[in-house]
């Protein structure tokens, strides 16, 4: 089973998306 590679920083994710011509998916979550 493939694991999703989660970035922790939004701006890092945007930079990576621009380099790899992908979109950004962002999950706002709460640990409660």
């Amino acid at each position: 089973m493939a694991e999703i590679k989660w970035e922790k920083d939004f701006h890092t994710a945007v930079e990576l998306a621009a380099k790899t011509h992908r979109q950004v998916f962002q999950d706002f979550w709460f640990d409660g």
Partner: protein
Amino acid sequence: MNTGPYSDEKVQKYLGEQFVSVKSQCFWDKRSELMKQFDIAWTPTLLVHDSTGKEHHRVVGFVPSEDFLAHLKLGRGKMFFNRFRFADAVEALSVALDQHPKAGPAPETIFFLGVAKYWQTHDPKGLRWAYDTLAERFPQSEWARRAGPYKQIPA
């Protein structure tokens, strides 16, 4: 840890191929800058951005795998739509609808697909197609009502 829709192999594959995924933790007693930037008031809130970080689609609340995939694909189509890339939008939204015809976002997908078809061809039959399809398949949806004016367009 991957739970909920993230445990679905189809979701994992699609996210890996098309998206860079990022988790942003929320703190209600001290809202983060990202929470303020994107007006996050409940979780989960799922955002689909383009490669510059501009938001194109949003989901608030839990969604199961089938709806989740359909939302990701709708978000891809709306990204093209918002950029006036209507041929790409038609292709992406057609894929979303073909692969997830009964998913939660299907009515919205049909609406934007019809409008994208219109922009692509300047033929109002795309709008009429959206009305007819929504009236037949999702007559109770808000999107059927939004497409209501297109009923006046000759079939």
